[in-house]
């Protein structure tokens, strides 16, 4: 039985997604996207798609977070809306 784990992780995914678009601080958004990707990675792993989970962990949670942080570092940290 892995459904409870599934549902808990899915709840975290939704929390991270909603938080990422509602937070004013763009650096926090970048980190929340990293957390979102990591939760998605757990979901893929639970579903047995290990290759996709690996890609999500390295690309989504790893490199793209760094790219976002780098972009925030060079632009502004506050969003206007």
């Amino acid at each position, binding site marked *: 039985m892995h459904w409870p784990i599934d549902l808990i992780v899915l709840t975290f995914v939704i929390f991270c997604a909603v938080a990422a678009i509602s937070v004013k601080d763009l650096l926090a958004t970048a980190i929340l996207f990293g957390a979102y990707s990591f939760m998605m990675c757990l979901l893929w792993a639970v*579903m047995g798609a*290990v*290759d996709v*989970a*690996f*890609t999500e962990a*390295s*690309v989504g949670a*790893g*490199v793209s977070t*760094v*790219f976002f*942080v*780098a*972009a925030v*570092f*060079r632009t502004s940290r506050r969003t206007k809306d």
Partner: protein
Amino acid sequence: MKFIGFVIVCLTGALLLYGTGEFPDWGDPASPASIHLSNHYIEKALEETQVPNLVTAVLADYRGFDTMFETAVVFCAGLACFLLLRDFSRKKERFYRHTATGVILHVKDSKKVLKTGKEFEHMDKDWVPSDLIIKTICRILIPFIQIYALYVVAHGDFSPGGGFQGGVIFGSSLILLAISYDLKTLLSRVKEKVLGIFAALGVLIYVGIGAICMPMGGNFLDYVKLVPLVPGDPHHIRALGMLGVEIGVGIAVTAAMAVIYINIVSEGRHDEGL
């Protein structure tokens, strides 16, 4: 306006959720995806390609053409970052720090370049002394990360992973070097030209392996026709072909990741970064 947007998003989400109700169950053996092609891959892939990891077999062999253009997309992403952001204009002023005394020199003449080394070091306007603990830990970690990345590329046939993941991990080890030391350390180890050449070389390796198959009498990316060129057990030729293209993908992705990071973080000036 915001309220209308919210309503539209909610409606679209409800429609999508309604649509997913019609999907076959997760892992349903009677679903359309599982009756035609999947059976062939699951039953025949190991026999035909000698590769235990079905995902790699499908990605790099059966759907090799698709993966080739994915690599090209990553290459194009790196190229676009370079073309949009790269700034070749010369810097007007430079800052140097005398290591022994901590005195900071402000050089306004753009032609005067001090030699950095033991006595002077480069300084940027938002310069912070790099932390000894972070530097040491990263110096220890980076070789292991790189070995792991090479393992992921080389072992893609047998375990999860492959060129994309390995390339991204190798690229992030380069980025870690740039973050823990500074951008100049990375650029003095890996030149910008080298990165550009590697990004193109990776795609070239992939396309080259595919193209060699054609004069040998096969279709594009038909690895079986490479048997006369490769010594060893002819049964493993498709696995070897996959390894070759995975290496190409790994090289291209590594270089593209590093190019994207360097150009974003320094606004294309390649001097100072995070």
